[in-house]
């Protein structure tokens, strides 16, 4: 089992070289003539004062939150799915019940209008 994870570890170490290498090479090939106007933040309108601070809609939080809950649910379901053929009938229905509870939650969020983008 560790054999495969060594491969993944090497992948993590070496995968940086392939995009990073060309970028370093491009640093020498490409011309480098910065000046004030060119280095300005891309803006069509008034310059941003101070830090980039933009007031966000709460919708972003709703979707990230719903994703988190369903993501943790999936983490629970993967062992159930892997050991599926060794499970008794009771195990299958408890897993199905687990999914249906969260399905009811999705309907509740839908009815309450939490999934709207408006």
């Amino acid at each position, binding site marked *: *089992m560790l*054999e*495969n994870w*060594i*491969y*993944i570890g*090497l*992948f993590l170490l*070496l*995968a*940086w070289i*392939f*995009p*990073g290498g*060309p*970028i370093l090479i*491009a*640093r020498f*090939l*490409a*011309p*480098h*003539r*910065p000046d004030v106007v*060119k*280095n300005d*933040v*891309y*803006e069509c309108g008034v310059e*941003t004062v101070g830090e*980039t601070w*933009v007031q*966000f809609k709460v*919708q*972003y939080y709703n*979707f*990230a939150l*719903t*994703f988190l809950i*369903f*993501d943790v649910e*999936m983490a629970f*379901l*993967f062992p159930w*799915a*892997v050991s*599926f*053929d060794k499970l008794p*009938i009771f195990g*299958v229905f408890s897993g*199905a019940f687990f*999914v*249906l509870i*969260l*399905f009811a939650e*999705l309907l509740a969020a*839908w009815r309450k209008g939490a*999934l*709207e*983008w408006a």
Partner: protein
Amino acid sequence: MSFFSDPVNSIILWLRNLLIGWGLSTGGVTLIMKALGVMVLSTLALLLVIFLIWLERKLAARFQQRLGPNRVGPYGLIQPIADVIKIFTKEHITPFGVEGFLYNLAPILSVAAVLMLWAVIPLYKGVVGADLNVGVLYLVAAGALGTLAILLAGWSSNNKYALVGAFRTVAQMVSYEVPTVISLLVPVLLAGTMSVSGIVEQQKVIYLLVSPVAALLFFLSSLAEIGRTPFDLMEAESEIVAGFHIEYSGLKFGMFYVGEFLHAFTVSALFAVLFLGGWRGWGAESFPLLGLVYFMLKSFLVYFLVVWVRSTLPRVRIDQMLNFNWKFLTPVGLILLVATAVVQKVILISGASYGVMVLSHLVVNVLILWVAFRIVETREARRPRRQPVAQPRPVARPPEVTQA
């Protein structure tokens, strides 16, 4: 195990003997072999991207009844190489107030995340990077890294448009990851293992026939995951001025482009592996290299489908896209998961043959799809829609002449 039937394994064997001949420790040999494997796989993937750029431009052109690049070299094959050289010499502008390290990390992470997907994809019978027993979940994890790269890019370039664009893109990618994970659960449930090469071996009947709804779910949600039309919100020019990679230029922007192309092909390769049976084919067991041909054919078939969808469908608004995900894909996915589990267990208990299992799964899937469309139609019918009443259009007529 001659060279022609199984080139990669024979090369590995030859190299291993060579290295052991030089007296290296076995641990050191495996390390070097694995490092070489990573290098070769990543180089092939990046060279493949250059071919993909040409293929995509040719296909998109053909869909719009035009020729596409054919000036540079035969059929324009040298065109992408010319593009690559051009983009190498483009100046890179680093605007003020940029978080130096994160700004440069984002493009590298976005390409590295896609490259890491290739570690678990089986090329043919005995050849897979790492036969992880948690392979499918590793794919989801690598996808999560891609989302992180976009967030880093948007936040570190210190630009309002980039920030809003990154957040909209992350909201889209995050919410479309739920149906992707649900549709990945179905092959795991059917095959009983999470290792990707195990799923390919279990697929006596390709899972597209066993569970078409899961295949449809995976295809649609991974279309949104790679940001291709119709879920093209990432670089929607009309809305947020090229989204999160607005402050990047030169090769760093090129790297985002490479990452997107490679992600598109990797997703079609995953679809081919998980739902079309990867390297399985008639002669694949006896003549392993044929498996590689099958795998490539299936991947390019799905890639053709992706480009076809990209060339025909218009872009979808963000609220329509998120509604489609949370109000159609996720509910259908959850119900499909429960139905597949129950049907699978009933068949395992009753001990029916493999054919009966495939047929029953197929019937249940078609039933779910039909019921889903029925519900969507009734909801659409009930939705109050502004009827275009035919008002008489005011016509320039002389005022009524009262009959004398």
